[in-house]
Structure formats: structure tokens, C-alpha cells
């Protein structure tokens, strides 16, 4: 049961006219800068982690085409149910960099009060739903949110992200099945980056393809070259449009590669070879898109370098703006468990006041 792999940016430098989103020069350059920005963000965050300034980080180097291509296709009213690796999509969907960086520090500048680990952010006003660690729990939730919109006759799409590992969970199955049965406006975007921590996708499923699983649910399935930002944009845009048009859900599988570690706690050298990594590095989605833009005469070395410098500077400013914010106040520990604080948490707040001396 093989689905074709959709590719826009062909090896010979041409673009498949059926998949070409036909962006103008400005948009192509903008998209490129977004990808460069993500790479720079990862580098900075990894540096912050290594130097002990933040506790943890999950990078997405190598997956910039999947992140930016799909994120670029979202429209403002759409809802995003991200996984912990999708900061790239969130930023494109209106989650401010300042908020994202503050979340990494988890101090009083963080809109979520330092409640969760880095990479577990959210933004109600941007419709970016709260990231949680348990893999794939967001998938059935995205179906419910989509159902609500459909019930009210709203025309937004609901995109949820997950990984190849996530496709093995029970939550994946129930979400796809509910989306099929209720014909909701969902897009399920699987970043198949070949690994779930150390487990290769060949040990995750014997089906050979995650997109092909869509048929088991009566929804659309699409396999796309996840390192091809134009193709990813195109298939995601189409899937979102089908959703908004009331034509049901799509499962998109973007074939890509996590070039770095699973997280700052991981050592990928334990489970994959240097050659394998090298082979994928040669397919680096940023370099690939840069080559395309260069061929079109839309990019030169100076512009490429400028994009990186600009990105680094913006990130540096964001970090500087929040790094030294004071820590979250101790009492905030017991807030937001319920809408109103019940007696037992008021008691616990009293202990905090006494012992923390606040």
C-alpha cells in the first residue's frame, strides 16, 4: 500500500508545476528567512542549555521545511495543537518570540508562570494550544475542537502535529477514527523524522508508511517530502482548505530527519551512524531551499548571511529582555489548579507564606 512521495523541488532544480505554490519573490525570501530563523533559534537555545542558563531544550534542526512549510499555510483563525518540537509552527502562527523565550526561562516573564519545562508553551490569543509531554494526547483533542467549530458553522481548520512514534499510540488511532466518523475539519501532521528517540520508524510500524494508515479511517492520506518546503506548504495548504471547505480530515506524513539529538538529554550517537546523519545532512532543507532561491537569483551569500545575523540578533534581544526577570513567586505554586482556590489549597498557600517567608 504505497502512497506516492510528493516532491516540488526536484533534484534537477526544476519545480513540479502541479505542486508549485507559485509564491512571489518576496514570499519566497520571507519563507527562507523563517527557516533560517528557526535554525538560529535552535542554536541559541542549545547554547543557553549547555551553558546552564535554561534547563532543557528540544530542537528541530533538519525539520525546518516541515515546520515552516506547514506553518506558513495556516490562517489566523486556524487552531494549532502542537507537539513539543513545533516552536517553528507556533511562531509562524502568531506566538510571539518574546513569549517563547520567556517560557524557556520559566521566570516571571513567562505567561505560563514557569509551570512547565521548556518547549511546553501555549498562547490562547494565537489559538496555539498548550503543549504537553505525553505523546499524541493532543490528537483527539483537536478533533473535539474541530467538532465545536463545525457545530457552530465556523470555517476554520484544526492542525495537530505529532511524530512517527506518536502514530503507535492508542490516541492516534482514536483521533483518526473519530475524525473519519465525524468528518471534522482536521489536519494531522506527522513529522516522520525517522526516530522516536532511539527507535527507528521501521520498528515503529511494519506498514512502511504512516500516511497510508489514513485509509483505515476513511480520511485522506498524503506523503510528502518533508525537506521540501514548497511541497510541504502545498499539501498542507490543500489539506487545510479541504478541512475549511467541509471535506473532512487529512493525515499528512512529512518525511524528514531530526539532524540533532532528540533533546538536550539525548545522545544520538548511541543509536545511529555518522554516515546516516551525514547522508541526511546533505538533504538539509535550508540548503536545499537556498539552492532553489539562488538558482532563481533571489538569494546570494550576503543575503543568506544577513538573514542569519538578523535572526540571531532578534533572538539575542528577546533573551536579553527576559532572562533576568525575577523568579515566579512561590505562592503561584497553588494558583490555577481550579478557577477559585478551594480551602485545601488556601491552607497550602499558608504553609508557603510561612516557610517561604513571603
Amino acid at each position: 500500500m504505497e502512497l506516492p512521495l510528493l516532491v516540488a523541488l526536484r533534484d534537477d532544480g526544476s519545480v513540479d508545476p502541479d505542486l508549485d505554490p507559485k509564491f512571489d519573490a518576496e514570499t519566497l525570501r520571507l519563507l527562507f528567512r523563517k527557516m533560517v530563523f528557526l535554525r538560529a533559534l535552535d542554536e541559541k537555545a542549545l547554547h543557553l542549555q549547555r551553558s546552564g542558563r535554561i534547563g532543557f531544550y528540544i530542537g528541530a534542526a533538519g525539520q525546518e521545511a516541515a515546520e515552516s512549510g506547514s506553518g506558513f499555510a495556516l490562517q489566523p483563525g486556524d487552531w494549532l495543537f502542537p507537539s513539543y518540537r513545533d516552536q517553528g509552527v507556533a511562531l509562524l502562527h502568531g506566538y510571539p518570540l518574546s513569549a517563547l523565550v520567556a517560557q524557556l526561562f520559566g521566570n516571571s516573564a513567562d505567561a505560563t508562570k514557569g509551570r512547565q519545562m521548556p518547549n511546553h508553551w501555549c498562547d490562547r490569543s494565537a489559538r496555539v494550544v498548550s503543549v504537553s509531554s505525553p505523546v499524541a494526547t493532543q490528537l483527539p483533542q483537536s478533533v473535539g475542537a474541530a467538532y465545536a467549530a463545525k457545530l457552530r458553522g465556523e470555517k476554520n481548520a484544526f492542525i495537530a502535529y505529532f511524530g512517527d512514534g506518536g502514530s503507535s499510540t492508542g490516541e492516534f488511532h482514536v483521533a483518526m477514527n473519530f475524525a473519519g466518523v465525524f468528518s471534522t475539519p482536521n489536519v494531522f501532521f506527522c513529522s516522520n523524522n525517522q526516530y522516536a528517540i532511539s527507535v527507528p520508524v521501521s520498528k515503529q510500524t511494519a506498514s512502511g508508511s504512516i500516511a497510508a494508515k489514513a485509509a483505515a479511517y476513511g480520511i485522506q492520506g498524503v506523503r510528502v517530502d518533508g525537506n521540501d518546503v514548497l511541497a510541504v506548504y502545498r499539501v498542507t495548504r490543500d489539506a487545510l482548505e479541504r478541512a475549511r471547505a467541509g471535506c473532512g480530515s487529512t493525515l499528512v506524513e512529512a518525511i524528514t530527519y531530526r539532524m540533532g539529538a532528540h533533546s538536550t538529554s539525548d545522545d544520538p550517537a548511541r543509536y545511529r551512524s555518522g554516515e546516516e546523519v551525514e547522508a541526511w545532512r546533505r538533504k538539509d532543507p535550508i540548503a536545499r531551499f537556498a539552492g532553489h532561491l539562488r538558482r532563481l537569483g533571489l538569494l546570494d551569500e550576503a543575503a543568506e548571511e544577513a538573514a542569519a545575523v538578523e535572526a540571531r540578533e532578534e533572538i539575542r534581544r528577546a533573551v536579553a529582555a527576559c532572562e533576568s526577570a525575577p523568579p515566579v513567586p512561590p505562592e503561584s505554586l497553588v494558583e490555577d489548579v481550579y478557577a477559585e482556590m478551594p480551602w485545601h489549597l488556601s491552607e497550602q498557600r499558608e504553609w508557603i507564606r510561612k516557610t517561604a517567608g513571603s
Partner: protein
Amino acid sequence: MATMTLVQAIHDALALEMERDPRVVLLGEDIGRNGGVFRATEGLWERFGPERVIDTPLAEAGIVGMAIGMSLNGLRPVAEIQFADFIFPAFEQIVSELAKFRYRSAGQFIAPVVIRTPSGGGIKGGHYHSQSPEAYFIHTAGLKVAMPSTPADAKGLLAAAMRDPDPVIFFEPKALYRTAKGEVPEGDFTVPLGKARTVRAGEDVSLITYGATVHVAEEAAALAQEEGIGVDLLDLRTLWPLDIEAVVRSVERTGRAVVLHEAPRTCGFGAELVALIQEKAFLHLKAPVARVTGFDTPFPYALEKLYIPDARRVLDAIRAAVSF
């Protein structure tokens, strides 16, 4: 006032809230055309349509996960889990997600889902149609837990749960669905979450319980009265957040307490009640707080009657407390 069974009162609350608030939707297995295996949603599918009374595929994780998503996007979903025994496939969604959305987003995302589910024994349902799993949910910060014992409370508490800004696990003692009958206020009516009800006042011993065993407790209290023992009987109604004041006030007066539930003893809610009572009323206690509970076994089929606490076991505990 109308006389209703407990399941009719549940139905009444659902129908009224659906009428009152277009954001309310119901979802679960067999709740639509079939009206629910206990008929709690009878006629609602016909009345409010299949978009608001939703028959789902057989997947509790999907039911709760979908309900969470609905609530994030402005609906007020009421999920039915057909039997509390089948709530465990949804445990991940409840414990990791439902309970934590408000906290982890610092109030940006809230998930005011009500999960209705029939619990407890008394219908010869064996292992998987009889359990009382409330303690799992009381232990999970971020959830509210309620269980009515009368038709009026069933209606009022459920309506309150459906308007509450927090997720509520609402246990319905299935043994009472048709056996508990009583006066129920007509139309709009709520019973506030977090307030216990004094079923009868007494001076000698506090008897604290909730759900189906309230009726067992009433029986035991009447028997105790015959022996001259005055029982102060408290129906908690909301298990968590507990009406701690009512509990402490009662025990301070009586100096003795028996806590009663059907769920297994070890790490059951009774343990928490004992711990709280001895923390807050230690110097008033003239006897250890006694627990009368289900056994630490899976729920049995043939020996169901032995498993569920009866008035005699409660009376024994009352006597022991008074004569300690």
C-alpha cells in the same frame, strides 16, 4: 416539585441545561438513539439532534479527548462513560490532560468537561460493572468529584457541575437509578458543589458517607437510634473539594466518627477523611475514626452482597466507636 427517580432527575438536569445553554453537548456510547444503557439520555437525541447528542465509536480515550477539545473551543460537553469500570482507557486524557490544562497554561486554556458515569455495585455486575473508582480522581489535582445520593441532589449537583468552570467527575450510583425516588424541584435548580448535607442530626457519633451508602447509613442510623445512639449523618455530595467545615464541625461535636464507602479500603477516600479528621479534630476524638468499606479485592459477582457494606456492618462500627 415532582417525584422522580434518580435517573429521571439526571435526565431532567441534562434536558434543562441543554435547553438553557446551546453550548451543552452530550457524547458517549449508546447515548443517542438508544438513550443510554440506563436511559439517562432518553429522548434527547430526538429532541436536540445527533449533533448535540453524539453517539461515539467505542473508545473512552476518544470520548474524553474529544470532550476536552470541545471545551477548549467553547462548548460545554458532558461525556458519558457507560460504566465507571470503563473509564480507565480515558485515564491518560483525564489525569494528564483534563486535570492539568488550566494549571499548565496558567489559566489560558480551561477544560470544563463533565464526565458522568454510573458507579458502584448492587446490580450483580461483577468485576467490571460495579467498581467505585472515585479515589483515583480525588487524588488527581485539578478535578472536582461529586456523587449524589438523592434525585434532588442528582439534578442540582449535575446542573451545578455543568455550569462549573472546572472539570467534574460525576459519579452516579447506579444502584439508586431506579430505587431512589424523591421530590425534585422543577425547572432551573442547582445544588452548590462543595457543600455537604446533614441527613440527620445526632450527638453521639458522626457517620460520613456519600452516594449509595447514604441509604445504608440511614438504615444503620435508625437502628442505632433504637439503641439510644444518636448519629450525625453527613452526605458529602461533593467529594472533592470536600466540605471540610461540615465534617470538622460534626466530629468536634460528637468526638467519634465512622466513614463509610463501597470502594476498596486501602487508599480509598475513607483514608483521606480519617487523615483529615485526626489532623483537624484530634483533641476531640474519643475513639479512632472507623472505616467501613468494600474489601481489598476486585469486585465479586457471587459475593456482591457480602462485599457491599450493609447496615449491620455500619452499626457494628457505630457501636464500637461509641463503646471504645
